[in-house]
């Protein structure tokens, strides 16, 4: 039985295909069993016979001719790249979509928002859409799905009274203090959705006065990450400045802006915000990256200076 097993495995032993323990067993057995040792000898002899006639290498001429022929054919052939992958393999295509839920969500939101905007424009141009003052109960929140846009946000100088003009089906106006739920809701809406960057700037500016509210903080982080206007992002950054230390999500957001924001002013401000936390390992790695590769000279040198001041960790 044992000899059978060894004989079946001698070939793989010779080819180096046995696991260490099996190889050990075969070697031990071969040392004791002359019959199996004969089989090993026969296997090696067979291999030696084959080795008498090794495989001929292709001649350089054949190789060169093959390469040349292939090169000619490649000139007219179309490569299978990204697009072919999408067309040929819908599975891959679907996977791309599945892998990007954020992108898919963004497409839906943009489509939805665009639809609402178009409806608003259509209705706003109708003569019946007149501006009206609305002084209803300020504690009653506005149906947010009814708001189609914010026209303006103004604060009365020297008070915390805010005046917001917004559109539902027709233009409405709301007044109240910053603490009113309705006002806060409108400001949050304005910070997220408005097409007019001036309005977003005003809303974010007002929101920075009440960043303790987690929804407000959320809106500021959203503005910092997504707003197309650098001024709005800068304002949001200001509003978040007090929370970099206590809220790790705020810190992450600021670090993301530090690396990824296209505007050097925003990056510079973010750099100032993280300065007190330069011993944090995440902050340090971001600083190292900035010191090496930020396109702005002064950010690079400032990051380098901050790294140089850092206490030795080891």
């Amino acid at each position, binding site marked *: 039985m044992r000899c059978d097993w060894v004989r079946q495995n001698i070939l793989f032993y010779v080819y180096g295909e046995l696991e260490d323990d099996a190889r050990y067993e075969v070697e031990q057995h071969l040392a004791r069993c002359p019959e199996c040792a004969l089989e090993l000898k026969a296997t090696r002899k067979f291999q030696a016979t084959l080795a008498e006639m090794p495989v001929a290498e292709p001649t350089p001429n054949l190789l060169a001719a093959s*390469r040349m022929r292939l090169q000619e054919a490649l000139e007219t052939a179309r490569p299978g790249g990204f697009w072919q992958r999408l067309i040929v393999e819908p599975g891959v295509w679907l996977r791309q979509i599945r892998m990007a839920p954020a992108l898919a969500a963004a497409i839906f939101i943009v489509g939805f928002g665009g639809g609402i905007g178009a409806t608003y424009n259509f209705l706003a141009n109708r003569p019946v859409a007149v501006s009206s003052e609305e002084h209803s109960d300020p504690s009653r929140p506005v149906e947010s799905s009814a708001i189609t846009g914010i026209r303006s946000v103004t604060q009365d100088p020297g008070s915390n009274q805010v005046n917001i003009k917004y559109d539902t089906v027709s233009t409405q106006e709301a007044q109240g203090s910053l603490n009113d739920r309705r006002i806060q809701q409108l400001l949050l809406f304005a910070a997220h959705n408005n097409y007019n960057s001036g309005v977003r700037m005003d809303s974010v500016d007002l929101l920075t006065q009440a960043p303790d509210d987690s929804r407000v903080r959320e809106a500021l982080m959203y503005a910092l990450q997504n707003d197309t206007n650098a001024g709005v992002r800068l304002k949001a950054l200001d509003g978040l400045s007090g929370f970099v230390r206590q809220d790790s999500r705020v810190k992450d957001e600021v670090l993301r802006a530090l690396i990824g924001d296209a505007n050097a002013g925003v990056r510079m401000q973010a750099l100032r915000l993280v300065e007190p936390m330069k011993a944090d390992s995440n902050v340090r790695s971001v600083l190292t990256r900035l010191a090496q590769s930020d396109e702005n000279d002064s950010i690079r040198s400032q990051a380098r200076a901050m790294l140089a001041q850092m206490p030795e960790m080891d």
Partner: protein
Amino acid sequence: MPADSYGIAIPVGEMYRPRRAEQEKGNRNPSVRGSLAAQSNRIDDTSLIREAQQGNRSAFEVLVRHYDQSVLRLALHLTGSESDAQDVYQEAFLKAYKNLGSFRFECSFYTWIYRIVTNLCLDHLRKRNVRKEDAPVAVDASGEEYSRLEQFADARSGANPERDLMRRELGRKIGTALSALTPRERMVFELKHYHGLKLRTVGEMLHTTEETAKNTLFRATQKLRAALAEMR
């Protein structure tokens, strides 16, 4: 499976033939052999493949040069004909070029290209089995028939005609014995014995398990030994 989960044990782009000394040592640690070269080639390949996938033809041509010599050698030995080998070479790399978009680094590029080549060669062997042609006679580019193994014997034997005759005879015997194998047995034996690949890799190339490749190699070797013993 991640792209670099297998270390192909042979330095790609250069010929590897199992040396007797190495085999007699039991081939103890083949993974060390050329592993550095293979690793650096793999890194190179990854960026080359990505560039080629984006439509960079010269990146693809560099990739071809990493593998084409061993591809041609395999095709030449399996088909026994320069023009057939050239056809397999051409078809394999064109197919790779056209399907490069579907290569997703789930296996090494080496395994992937060899999969294409072995499939083409298997088709060729099957067709030839249907035609019942005998192996060792080859047809060169000009259409003239010659024996590949005999020709090789000529080159090695020098001025000893008796030895030359014996080598020719042995070459014919080996060629006949090899061509009597089934296409799959022939392929496994070729990849293991003449190309020194690990049976695990052979299994991957032929879309089968290592165990099946092992059994096939065992059967092929038994048949060859029997055939060569009969002829002696």
